[in-house]
């Protein structure tokens, strides 16, 4: 069983399934790359008021996550925002 699991995890079929799940979340959300870019720029503008962030390293995407109430899997906007200078935020 352990061996079977090992192969299942590595199989390209599961890679395909995971990739599809992700791409379909953003397809279904009907979120165009232009809108995503606007959201990204707005987030940069808002957060930059308070903290110096790495604008190049900022990454946002629509993905899926387990809902905390028991609705199962729900779409979520995931943002990875690296902070450049935390000191200035203490001001």
């Amino acid at each position, binding site marked *: 069983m352990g061996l079977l699991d090992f*192969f*299942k995890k590595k*199989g390209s*079929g599961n890679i395909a*399934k995971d*990739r*599809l*799940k992700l*791409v379909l979340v953003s*397809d279904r959300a009907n979120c165009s790359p232009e809108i995503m870019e606007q959201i990204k720029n707005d987030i940069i503008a808002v957060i930059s008021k308070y903290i110096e962030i790495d604008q190049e390293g900022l990454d946002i995407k629509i993905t899926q996550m387990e809902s905390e109430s028991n609705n199962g899997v729900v779409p979520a906007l995931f943002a990875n925002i690296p902070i450049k200078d935390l000191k200035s935020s203490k001001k």
Partner: protein
Amino acid sequence: MGEVIVVTSGKGGVGKTTTTANVGTGLAMLGKKVVLIDTDIGLRNLDVVMGLENRIVYNLVDVIEGNCRIRNALIKDKRYPNLYLLPSAQTRDKNSVSPEQMKKLADELREEFDYILMDCPAGIEQGFKNAIAGADRALVVTTPEVSAVRDADRIIGLLEANDVSQIHLVVNRIRMDMVKRGDMMSSEDVCEILAIDLIGVVPDDENIVIATNQGEPLVGSDSLAGRAYMNICSRIEGEDVPFLDLNEKNGIFSKLFGKRKK
């Protein structure tokens, strides 16, 4: 009153026409009166898959434009007297027909036939809109590949937006050897992703190529794919048929004794 079923997929080359030919022929074998309509104007194919390409006189656009009566354009199948084909036009384009006209045609055919099967073109443009216009039910065909499943998902969204109430999934060209070693999504995987009811799983079977070469649908034959198509027909008829064990041909025993089964 007959039922209008559209066979669609979004992506090209996943087996819409083959599915239409086999499901249509299978329903005729079950004693139903069936008409197959090739809605792919400009890229006519259902006629050659059915082996009826030499009998075409009039086509879909002729009927729509009133150049002939419906009965003049319908080609009677050479194997089953209750099976007909309405071929597409080869020299026209998709804008020759409107969704309203297709719906009207479908409603006329409902009076006379038990099943009207629309073979939809690839894509989501005019041809797709024409094909789904009068449909009560959709068979969404996909293969277990990321591109085909993604397109199928888009199609399902469009079908729902156009009030096609029953949407069923056909997973085509499954290779059980690849599924077993984890290198292909299983029909369950595809079904889980697309979240619609599964109505058929058709294995990748070289008999399909042979049958298409000969212009003979293979539904009803003893091949795995032939049986898979027949099961889809029974399920359309409302029967609760268990899914085939697609592994059987890969076993050493069935390879050795496969012939005996017949």
